[in-house]
């Protein structure tokens, strides 16, 4: 069976991406002993694996953080948290300086200032952004990096978190890690919906297929409140490769055109959701395919190739394939076909994730969230994820130092003795170990993690507004989704495993099923269509401002989810009740 190991750290960070790495560095600077758990390898894990070629969240010289907050709020059609956006925006430019200080090449103009692209975007040579962050973590003192260590559970009592459980592929063991300050930085959830590319290429997604919603699932199961999951992100990207289009749209000022060569963006509006909708409507009306089109001379084309090598090498390969087939002549009018992705749950571009206060505390004591795992603050990107991590790390440090100071009496609203606490902790660990080991005792059958994943993705695609239905869903369909997901979840509890990799693979589908079920509840609760580009509720096809509230959810004590409607936060600080 599984051996286990008990560990304890002052602070624990789950997920070593943009947010997790920055939080580790910040906590280390404050002298806090911290463990950073990463399911893969710090060097190139997460969304940043292939690199970036721009920092998409930055406050240009003539703008202020308030402008950024307003822009993001407007882009979300009113449904974001002002306090979160503003506090994040205030720390964006600091992250740019930090990244530059650790070696990132940020493009400058002749005067030596950052060369702004638009008012909130900087070009970088960012192939190496993740190795740079990882090196900075490895240089930091007090940080224990645990790679190939996949967190599976929070060790939680009602309302508070005592630690986390993780499966380590290096040690072939289950780790129980006690900590008084835990940060979830596991990114968002891909793989809930049927992907656009078939079979062997099914993991060629826009979002990282390795961000499987683990942090969200752990939080949901521990009773944390989630927000706005129904605002799924649908990415309009280069067809086939799902490579980002910012380089074309912002870098080369390419316009979206339909197959008749007509520019149509102005007809639909320019929020993120409206841009996605525009392409879809044009195709539905028989005017597809749609393209991003721009003129290039030879040098500009070479720059474009390099830009894509910096963040999505497959797209450069696609250009090269096209060029070999039909050699280019200049000036070159390049048309890149665009397509929209399957939906994701992630708090980096949209607002779905943990419900946090301004300090990025979740509703569970001892648990914080930052980056794509945290909700309420869309348009985060790399620098925003880092900014949130810094805010969380500051607050975690404050919390730990307060606790360290014996003069300040801590008021716990529960009265258990240390001994009782230890006993409960041991009991929690034992239950988790049993749950995981159950899979080793299950005899192999015909249900596997792969065919369950297919079933999940097919269900979500058909009944919860996936690509296949043009992102449309109805009440009746959502009811079907709920029913099927419940059955799939029951089946997933008895998946067999013969080694730790099997266990991790089946755990992935188990956590996706948890997130998917919450998502369907959220979709059912928002009885309007606020972001038609991201999804259309066919029973409620219009925007309805009585739904200008946050749709939140949390586990009920007797099981099942309760939906909580929370009024829009327009102030600069927000605290949990």
């Amino acid at each position, binding site marked *: 069976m599984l051996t286990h190991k008990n560990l304890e750290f002052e602070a624990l960070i789950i997920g070593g991406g943009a947010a997790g790495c920055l939080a580790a560095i910040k906590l280390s600077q404050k002298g806090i002993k911290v463990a950073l758990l990463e399911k893969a390898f710090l060097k190139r894990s997460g969304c940043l694996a292939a690199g970036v070629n721009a920092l998409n969240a930055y406050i240009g010289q003539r703008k202020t953080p308030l402008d950024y907050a307003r822009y993001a709020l407007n882009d979300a059609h009113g449904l974001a948290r002002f306090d979160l956006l503003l506090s994040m925006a205030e720390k964006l430019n600091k992250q740019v300086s930090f990244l530059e200080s650790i070696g990132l090449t940020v493009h400058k103009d002749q005067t030596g200032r950052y060369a702004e692209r638009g008012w909130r975007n900087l070009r970088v040579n960012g192939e190496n952004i993740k190795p740079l962050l990882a090196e900075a973590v490895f240089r930091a003192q007090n940080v224990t990096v645990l790679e190939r260590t996949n967190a599976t559970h929070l060790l939680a009592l009602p309302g508070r978190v005592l630690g986390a459980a993780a499966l380590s592929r290096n040690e072939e063991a289950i780790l129980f890690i006690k900590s008084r300050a835990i940060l979830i930085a596991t990114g968002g959830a891909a793989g809930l919906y049927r992907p656009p590319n078939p079979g062997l290429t099914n993991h060629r997604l826009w979002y990282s297929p390795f961000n499987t919603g683990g942090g969200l699932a752990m939080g949901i199961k521990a009773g944390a409140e989630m927000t706005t999951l129904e605002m799924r992100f649908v990415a309009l990207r280069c067809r086939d490769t799902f490579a980002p289009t910012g380089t074309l749209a912002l870098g080369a000022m390419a316009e979206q055109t339909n197959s008749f060569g007509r520019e149509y963006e102005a007809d639909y509006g320019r929020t993120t959701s409206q841009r996605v909708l525009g392409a879809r409507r044009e195709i539905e009306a028989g005017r597809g395919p749609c393209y991003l089109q721009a003129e290039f001379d030879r040098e500009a084309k070479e720059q474009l190739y390099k830009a894509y090598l910096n963040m999505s090498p497959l797209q450069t390969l696609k250009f090269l394939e096209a060029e070999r087939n039909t050699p280019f002549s200049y000036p070159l009018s390049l048309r890149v076909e665009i397509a929209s992705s399957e939906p994701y749950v992630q708090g980096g571009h949209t607002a779905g994730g943990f419900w946090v206060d301004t300090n990025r505390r979740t509703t569970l004591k001892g648990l914080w969230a930052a980056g794509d795992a945290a909700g309420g603050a869309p348009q985060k990107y790399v620098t925003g994820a880092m900014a949130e991590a810094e805010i969380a790390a500051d607050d975690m440090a404050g919390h730990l130092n307060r606790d360290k100071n014996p003069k300040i009496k801590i008021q716990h609203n529960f009265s258990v003795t240390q001994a009782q606490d230890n006993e409960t902790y041991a009991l929690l660990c034992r239950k988790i170990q049993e749950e995981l080991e159950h899979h080793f005792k299950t005899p192999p059958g015909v249900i596997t993690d792969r065919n369950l994943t297919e079933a999940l993705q097919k269900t979500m695609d058909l009944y919860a507004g996936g690509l296949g239905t043009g992102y449309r869903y109805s009440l009746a369909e959502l009811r079907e989704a709920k029913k099927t997901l419940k059955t799939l979840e029951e089946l997933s509890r008895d998946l067999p495993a013969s080694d730790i*990799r099997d266990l991790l693979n089946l755990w992935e589908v188990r956590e996706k099923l948890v997130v998917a079920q919450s998502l369907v509840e959220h979709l059912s609760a928002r009885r309007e269509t606020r972001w038609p580009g991201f999804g259309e509720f066919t029973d409620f096809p219009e925007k309805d401002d009585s739904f200008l509230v946050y749709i939140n959810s949390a586990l009920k004590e007797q099981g099942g989810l309760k939906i909580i409607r929370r009024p829009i936060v327009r102030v600069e600080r927000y605290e949990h009740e």
Partner: protein
Amino acid sequence: MSVFIDQNTCLGCGHCLNVCPGDLITLTDRNTALINEPERCWSCAACLKSCPHGSLKLFLSPSLGGRGLLLTARLKAPSSDNKKAGPIRWTVSGPDHLTEIITDPIRTDGY
């Protein structure tokens, strides 16, 4: 699936084992690299950049519009005085044996 491993040049050094964001790569008992469950590959090219011998090559599947071109990446270790100096060299080669090299002056982390 979009990474081809050249079994003739792979020396089994294991550098690529420690970079994949999906932790997909292992060594075979013949001591060459292997992508476990290749259909889980994201095509991020992280492994390419870690291979000192150019044995890992990215290709575009026909369903994504590929016709057999292969892309490799070679990183030069940074010179000690200027971290940003080391270039990355991308090589594209095709079934027609034409090769093209794109060099990008990004700082790299060596191998």
